[in-house]
């Protein structure tokens, strides 16, 4: 009996806190609406970043769970990356989440482990685009954010500077990025040029543009 009362009190307290939190109450519907066929089973929010756990059923009615990382850009939530498995701190870091925010998302991870994960990162996300052609078979799984950043990364690896404040901020925070005043598109290999075009064509054909690479 006492247990039941305690549980009821705790539930009421949690509900009150949730309702009293205008940020979460405001943001959750917006974030949920980006995944119309999935159920949000957990949502964490820190400044302009959110990590979600989502549940759904595939074509064979088999249940699955995925995670998603979203960012509020220019007042609108965008899905940076989504997929099955575990989104660890290093993944979030690679997608541009600041270390201070990562610490808030993973409060139980020991500082030593966090340091180890965050110090080990640092390579471009899609380095293979230097040498391997990408086609629709690969691109179809990527979010508009990933497609845009993948294309921008091809240029960024050669030191291109960006006018777009979002791209500028993202690449400036990458450990491998070094802006080169002498940048020329001539430095791109034929595979890279072809990949940049393939990505752009794919985005245009499918309406998957996050922002212009400029």
């Amino acid at each position: 009996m006492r247990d039941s009362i305690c549980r009821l009190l705790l539930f009421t307290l949690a509900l009150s806190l949730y309702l009293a939190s205008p940020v979460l109450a405001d943001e959750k519907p917006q974030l949920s609406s980006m995944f119309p066929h999935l159920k949000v089973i957990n949502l964490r929010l820190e400044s302009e970043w959110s990590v979600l756990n989502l549940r759904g059923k595939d074509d064979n009615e088999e249940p699955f769970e995925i995670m998603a990382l979203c960012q509020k850009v220019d007042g609108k939530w965008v899905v940076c990356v989504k997929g099955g498995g575990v989104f660890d701190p290093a993944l979030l870091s690679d997608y541009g989440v600041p270390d201070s925010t990562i610490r808030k998302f993973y409060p139980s991870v020991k500082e030593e482990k966090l340091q180890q994960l965050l110090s080990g990162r640092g390579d471009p996300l899609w380095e293979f685009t230097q040498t391997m052609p990408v086609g629709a078979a690969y691109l179809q799984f990527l979010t508009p954010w990933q497609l845009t950043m993948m294309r921008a990364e091809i240029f960024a690896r050669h030191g291109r500077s960006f006018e777009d404040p979002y791209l500028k901020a993202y690449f400036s925070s990458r450990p491998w990025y070094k802006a080169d005043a002498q940048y020329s598109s001539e430095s791109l290999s034929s595979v890279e040029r072809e990949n940049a075009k393939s990505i752009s064509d794919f985005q245009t054909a499918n309406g998957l543009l996050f922002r212009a690479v400029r």
Partner: protein
Amino acid sequence: MAISFESHIRHHHNRPSIQQRGGKQQSSSANPINQGHGQDLFVNSRDSGFHDFNAAKTLGQRLQELGRQQRAGGNSAMFGQQVGEDKVHVRGEAPLPTPVPINDPAFLNNNNREMQGLESVILARSFVTNPPTRIDKLVGKVPNLKDLSWCKDCTYKGSPNTNNMCANFATAILTTTQGLKMQDSAVDYISIPRIRPALKAQGWHSVSRDKAMPGDVWLSDSHIEIISTKGGTHSIGSNTDPQRGYQYVTERPRSGGTILTRRTIR
């Protein structure tokens, strides 16, 4: 050589699964490959039930050796003499083997990769038990399976070891048997967004279902498994049990998704 693989695969597939035969999990040995299945399974370990595979591997190595000799201008007549078209058939004599395209590096490459693919299935299947084993119980038993218990905040249930291990399991199998490499020591392929570019970077490419072979990878936005049959009809992976809400290693029929291979498709 190709016949050897085919027969190996047939042999493997004709055997009923442990569930079909009502197999019972027996005590496991110190060898992680032996964990989770009984003595009557097709492949129990590299030492007991794996002789065919080892023989095939030896033959593959011998073929590579011959290929090197031939490319170096060595004894190129060796195969011509053995499988020459002008050899006269005698009634009752066994048919001649199909000539092996020994000059084709893609053939030798594929031979090796097909065998490694089989090894992936054998290893993955050795963890398919009846009743199925919860994935977190296999940490320390599946080679290269990461213990993610440090990341209690990674999933809502407080332990990614119990319900988000599909990429971790597939990565462990591929790392152990097919040489999948980690980008660096701190980055584990424990999510689909991590493993997809890693596979692409290491030469895995999509293939139609009819060309799928054991050891290829089945991939979707949310899930990854190891293809266990020719034609991609079944796969082995860490799957969520909807009733219990946790992941177990199971072998199931498979459709949809994308199939990736590292073999050269001709």
